[in-house]
């Protein structure tokens, strides 16, 4: 469990915007995510959730329900497929 908020926020933004996660040994692991699951329990939960949302918005990420996220993906995929 990452307790340091700055690290948590930075890694989340990196995962969403770059599609990679850095393991503790520095290895970059590709990850594809349509949603980010936030913990709702624990004293820091709400603060972390807010910080993550704000950081994602600052990074130019659009936050939307998964139906929209998938629709955008499907659109992108069909656009790049030969007719």
């Amino acid at each position, binding site marked *: 469990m990452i307790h340091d908020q700055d690290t948590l926020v930075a890694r989340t933004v990196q995962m969403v915007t770059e599609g990679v996660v850095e393991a503790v040994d520095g290895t970059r692991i590709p990850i594809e995510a349509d949603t980010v699951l*936030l913990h709702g329990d624990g004293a820091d939960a709400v603060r972390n959730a*807010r910080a993550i949302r704000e950081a994602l918005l600052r990074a130019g990420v659009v936050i939307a329900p998964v139906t929209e*996220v998938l629709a955008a993906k499907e659109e992108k995929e069909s656009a790049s497929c030969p007719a």
Partner: protein
Amino acid sequence: MTVKIDLVADLGESFGAWTMGDDGALLDVLTSANVACGFHAGDPRTMDATVRGCVARGIGIGAHPSFPDLAGFGRRAMELTADEVRTDVLYQLGALHAFATSHGTTLSHIAPHGRLGNLVATRADYARAVVDAVEAFDPRLIVLAQDGELADHARERGFASRSSPSSTARTARTAPWCRGPSPVP
């Protein structure tokens, strides 16, 4: 290319006189919610209020089904048959669907909770049971899953009818972020 992401958390996990979490605050942050369906948390009043709160903010509503384990918050180990999982999930989908309908909306996704949520990643029979329930209830439901059996099985059903306009069991990848003991998925 704009990056889009859904911020999701478990909501509605209070039960009657017992409060769990700070749903009010989270409602201002999320774009989707996994709503407890009564088996690990979520009495009818809590489900009603949670759905209402989500509808008011345009937050996508998903089912958060669990093992039948109120005392253990759905985290305790129990040996269920695949058919018990299938029918338990159907029952919980139905319960939440009633509240969604009453508030003029529909369910958008499903994300199993707790012990069931862990086991659908490793047990093919449970994964199949969940996908069977989803397909029978509403094949348009998005299955939120980490990489594993549930994601594979849901994708399988989806691929089968990908070319048709009414696709079944679409899957979405959920980053196991901010949860669990390890920061690495």
